[in-house]
């Protein structure tokens, strides 16, 4: 054996020994956590995992980003069918019903109780709890990254047209957009209507106006819900969008067009947009320091009483098929992330809101919301708690939400392109969305909502 080889072999042996020694001292139980966030947010999730691992020595959580929410769910399904599922998985808001009917999870409330954690589930912010709770109020999953839609507006541009406040009504929006255009802005209002980006318009708009997207209280009361967004105020909203688009007041901004709507707002190319409070951090980091901007609750049509907006984001589900010690670790992790200090860490590093009232109070006490660039994020909490959740503002409990959003996205594209009328486009989207809902219902024949 040559000298370098010998050294290498010795080093490998030494490394192996040191590893076995360290594992003999402390033998942390390893378990997997798969999540869907990517990019900046994924780094913060990883940091949360590192912090948990550093905070105790009994468990080691291994966190792996799956690249997107869709992929996290698909990969978990594939893994579950092969009996290789992670212990914890992050599932996006619209995957909640699929999870509830899957029979593949350990309910979070049961897991916490079994492992001796006394969780005050009522401490969760009303809108958050309503979205994820069963009809009996049980929490099957642990709320994690949560957000809601806000109106982002450029204060500099609005100053030019003599306004120092965001438009509160859609009627005002129409007037302001015209004024902005007249003041020389190319893109007064930038949005995206491709497949998954209709949630602000469809779901959040309907919630703050207190109108249902589907019957059976948006599906909470039965799998036989039917879409009804093609009647009422949403039609008016789309009619206005179409008219603004035709006048050049509304501009489509997507990655396909070269710049997505959040970037377009942050770069000052568009003066108004609707997006998640989760983007508040991104806009703060990427916007020019000279640009003055702020956020406001979604506008309402005049004469409407504001209801709470819906929570978006994802929650954590604990999967069946693992050992008791892994469940102990999972419970410890779920307990760790609900601590107020973690809420502060999480919200500081992302734009997401604290999910518990105790977390929120802790952040207020720490002066979080008074400091630039976090100032303004309290609007999200105000929006989520604008009213007690009504039967139609708890959330969306529809099985085929990806298809429904795709249908609405396609309809909006066709309507803006002028190939169908507003009413015809929305009627078609509702009819096709209903077919997807019926198929989902048939697939889960005999199952009832928990």
């Amino acid at each position: 054996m040559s000298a370098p080889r010998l050294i290498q072999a010795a080093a490998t042996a030494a490394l192996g020994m040191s590893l076995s020694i360290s594992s003999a001292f402390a033998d942390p139980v390893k378990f997997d956590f798969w999540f869907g966030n990517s990019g900046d947010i994924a780094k913060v999730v990883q940091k949360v995992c590192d912090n948990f691992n550093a905070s105790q020595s009994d468990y080691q959580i291994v966190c792996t980003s799956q690249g997107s929410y869709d992929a996290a769910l698909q990969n978990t399904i594939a893994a579950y069918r092969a009996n290789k599922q992670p212990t914890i998985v992050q599932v996006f808001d619209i995957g909640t019903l699929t999870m509830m009917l899957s029979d593949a999870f350990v309910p979070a409330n049961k897991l916490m109780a079994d492992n001796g954690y006394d969780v005050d589930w009522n401490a969760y912010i009303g809108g958050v709890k309503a979205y994820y709770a069963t009809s009996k109020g049980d929490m099957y999953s642990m709320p994690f990254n949560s957000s809601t839609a806000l109106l982002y507006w450029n204060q500099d541009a609005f100053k030019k047209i003599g306004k120092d406040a965001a438009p509160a009504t859609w009627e005002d929006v129409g007037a302001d957009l015209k004024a902005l255009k007249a003041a020389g802005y190319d893109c007064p209002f930038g949005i995206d209507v491709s497949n998954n980006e209709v949630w602000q318009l469809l779901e959040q708009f309907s919630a703050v106006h207190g109108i249902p997207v589907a019957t059976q209280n948006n599906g909470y009361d039965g799998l036989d819900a039917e879409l009804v967004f093609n009647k009422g105020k949403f039609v008016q909203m789309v009619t206005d969008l179409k008219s603004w688009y035709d006048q050049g007041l509304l501009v489509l901004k997507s990655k396909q067009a070269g710049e997505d709507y959040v970037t377009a707002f942050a770069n000052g190319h568009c003066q108004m947009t609707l997006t998640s409070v989760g983007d508040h951090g991104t806009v703060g980091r990427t916007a020019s320091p000279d640009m003055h901007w702020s956020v406001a609750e979604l506008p309402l049509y005049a004469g409407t009483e504001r209801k709470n907006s819906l929570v978006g984001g994802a929650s954590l589900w604990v999967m069946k098929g693992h050992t008791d010690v892994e469940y102990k670790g999972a419970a410890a992790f779920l307990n760790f992330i609900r601590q107020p200090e973690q809420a502060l860490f999480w919200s500081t590093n992302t734009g997401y809101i604290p999910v518990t009232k105790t977390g929120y109070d802790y952040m207020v006490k720490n002066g979080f919301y008074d400091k630039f660039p976090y100032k303004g994020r309290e609007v999200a909490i105000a929006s989520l708690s604008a009213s007690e959740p009504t039967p139609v503002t708890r959330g969306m409990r529809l099985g085929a939400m990806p298809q429904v959003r795709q249908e609405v996205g396609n309809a909006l594209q066709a309507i803006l392109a002028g190939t169908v009328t507003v009413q015809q486009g929305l009627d078609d989207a509702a009819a096709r969305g209903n077919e997807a809902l019926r198929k989902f219902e048939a697939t889960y024949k005999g199952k009832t909502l928990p």
Partner: protein
Amino acid sequence: MEKRAIFTNRWLGIAFIVPQLLLIFTFFYWPAGQAVFWAFTLQQPWGGGNEWVGFSNFVAILTDHIYWNSVVRSLAFAALSTGISMGVALVLALLADRELGGHHIYRTVLVWPYAIAAPALGLAFRFMLAPGAGMISFVNHIWPGIWDPTINGTEAFIAVTIAFAWKYIGYNFIFMLSALQAIPHSLIEAAAMDGAGAPRRMWDIQVPLLTPTLFFLLVLNITDSFQDSFGIVDIMTSGGPNRATELMVYKIYFDGFKGLDYSGAAAQSIILMLLVIALTVIQFRFLENRVHYK
């Protein structure tokens, strides 16, 4: 007399093919069989249960006019992208074969597109063809609104067709070039001595002798355009605007993986498989007799 090597031991022969059969069974027949089963049932994604529903998944798909639109669209996509990629590749191969200046560089460079993964390719084309910020955006400065694939379906369809064809140009090129180089030089020289110019020699000698390769590439390009296009579509347009780029395979991907409708997606895969088989049979039946193998 022809010499033949024959295995006298039947079991030895079988033993040699078993690994291959096992591979094909594991990675083709088993999953395909599974898909057939799913297509006749309603599958719960988590495996919680399934119910036999006969042909109802197929009926639902085949009575949906939007599905038929995607079939027509896929056929148009196959014809256009195959036409472009084979046509351009043929011209490039004929020129590279003439050993014009720098032909060594072309030969290497032109193969690269095929090595690029679909998502990266989609991203590159999305960037180049973006109406607001891409390299093409200058046309919108000259004639505002002339190019906008985010809202104009025809333009979006052109964009994905070009992206897909571009990927296959390199692949077709290398096959055509090697086939051209296998044509005996004496044939071309003889034609040249008879006074045939370069275009005449290409058309009368090189292209006919290339037909086995062209036929092989045609079958392959058409098959791949049905199966391999969803990555590019997903990145560039997500099937939009208003389904203008929703090809059959993208619809399978969306319904199955995003929508978790495993049964509907399985039924669509079977229809797609039958369509590709039918097209291949047609090509062998009607085109192959025009191929000169010798």
